[in-house]
């Protein structure tokens, strides 16, 4: 059994080149949007807009500038499936199409998925969507096919600044921790790791080094598992069924009285 593998993305060295997006699309043969006729989003340099069935990598551009533009900075972040150790999508999938691999990653088997969309709403990060070509839910596989062959995922291979690091989770955590300490030492006190510890969904096998609040990057501050609502939701429903059932039985009794 191989060790758990994943991504550590250091957003402080991302230059927004989108090589990861291109490499991902090429390797995974994902179709272009609108048959290749690009439309501009008007949101900074981001025309990919979001992760979905045909965008498994998405470089976010966050502009933080003073109104007079004297001071400011760019935050760039290459977003991807978090390959959660406790994954909401895997939990709700009714077909068993979503599996955990030997690398501890989360993969949707496209030949099993029937496109019920439950995983789309279950993902705390809004990563998954339907690929219109296959009619099934799709997302990053962490290049399962390349990993099986001992290769680096296409995005990490293409990243020119090693913002996207690929390796064993153990090594990545050490590397990320060292980088946080280095940044703290240089005065960037806001640097921290998002999803590296087990508090967040058992740990994210794709975790991030961030320098601002998660919300700024479009990441949920407190992602949860969908199954948290299963038991209370079922109990309230059962209570409702009992109340309606009892009221109904009493009404039926009344009917018999009326008939007589």
């Amino acid at each position, binding site marked *: 059994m191989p060790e758990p593998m994943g991504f550590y993305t250091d957003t402080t060295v991302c230059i927004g080149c989108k090589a990861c997006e291109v490499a991902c699309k090429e390797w995974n043969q994902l179709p272009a949007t609108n048959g290749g006729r690009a439309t501009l989003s008007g949101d900074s340099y981001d025309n990919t807009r979001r992760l979905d069935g045909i965008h498994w990598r998405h470089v976010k551009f966050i502009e933080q500038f003073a109104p007079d533009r004297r001071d400011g900075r760019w935050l760039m972040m290459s977003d991807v499936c978090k390959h959660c150790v406790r994954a909401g999508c895997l939990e709700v*999938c*009714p*077909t068993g199409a979503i599996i955990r691999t030997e690398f501890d990653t989360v993969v949707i088997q496209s030949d099993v998925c*029937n496109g019920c*969309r439950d995983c789309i709403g*279950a993902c705390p990060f809004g990563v998954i969507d339907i690929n219109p070509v296959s009619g099934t839910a799709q997302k990053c596989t962490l290049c399962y096919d390349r990993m099986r062959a001992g290769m680096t995922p296409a995005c990490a291979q293409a990243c020119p600044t090693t913002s996207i690091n690929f390796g064993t989770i153990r090594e990545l955590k050490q590397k990320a921790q060292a980088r946080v300490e280095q940044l703290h030492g240089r005065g960037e006190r806001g640097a921290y790791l998002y999803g590296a510890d087990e508090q967040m969904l058992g740990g994210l096998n794709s975790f991030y080094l961030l320098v601002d609040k998660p919300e700024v990057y479009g990441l949920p501050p407190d992602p949860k598992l969908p199954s948290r*609502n299963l038991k209370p939701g079922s109990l309230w429903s059962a209570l409702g069924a009992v109340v*309606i059932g009892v009221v109904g039985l009493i009404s039926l009794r009344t009917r018999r009285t009326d*008939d007589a």
Partner: protein
Amino acid sequence: MPSTFFTEPPHWRWLIILYFFFGGLAGGCYVLASMLDLGRPERFWHMMLQSATWRPMLKTYSPMSLGAWGLLVFGGFAFLSFLGALADGGRRRGFAFLSPPAPIGVIVSVLGGLAGFFLVSYTGVLLAVTNRPIWSDTTLLGAVFLVSSASTSIALLLLLGSSRVFLVGGLKALQRFDMIVLGLELLTLAALVVSLGSLARVWLNAWGALLVLGVVGIGIVVPLLLHAGAHTPVSPTARLAAVLVLVGGFLLRVVIVLSSEAI
């Protein structure tokens, strides 16, 4: 901002609304509408069988998986009861054993009724077991859908039932039952809004207006007043009330599904 606001809507939209609505009314339309909503309907069977091992595919912690099985079980019981009803109607008398008061008939209708309760409420639990705004921010949607299914089903029976099919006394009882259930529905909807807490502010828009005017006003309050003023359960006033209850039940599912999908 709550974490649910960082997710993507699954865009279940109109087919799901129809699915929830007819699901509250009857199993047959329900099966069709749910299968049509799959991206790959021909792969529905992946919800029943594991393709590699041919073992049953059942995840007790996934409402979508439980629901697929619930549909099958409910459909089976509905079919058995249908055969029993044929015998009651004078055709196929050989199936009379499937109709109460025959012992097997009683068992079929009790188990089928339980499957029905499951079917009308799991859809609400299905929405709750996600990470979407509104849906996963309350645990009451299953109960809300269940109570609403009761009121719409009673309304449908009131409309279909004439004094020839039901005794007028039976219809009167149904009408009283409807009024109690509509009262319960008001309480459940109030509890739903309370359970959302400050998040209920997301309904300060057209969806909230539709919830108050359409679901509560047209679908509950007006029918209650009409029923109270109706002389007989077959009068035009009572029939209008039943139609409005059906409209309100439909609008409830529209508001719940689309107000979240819009975020």
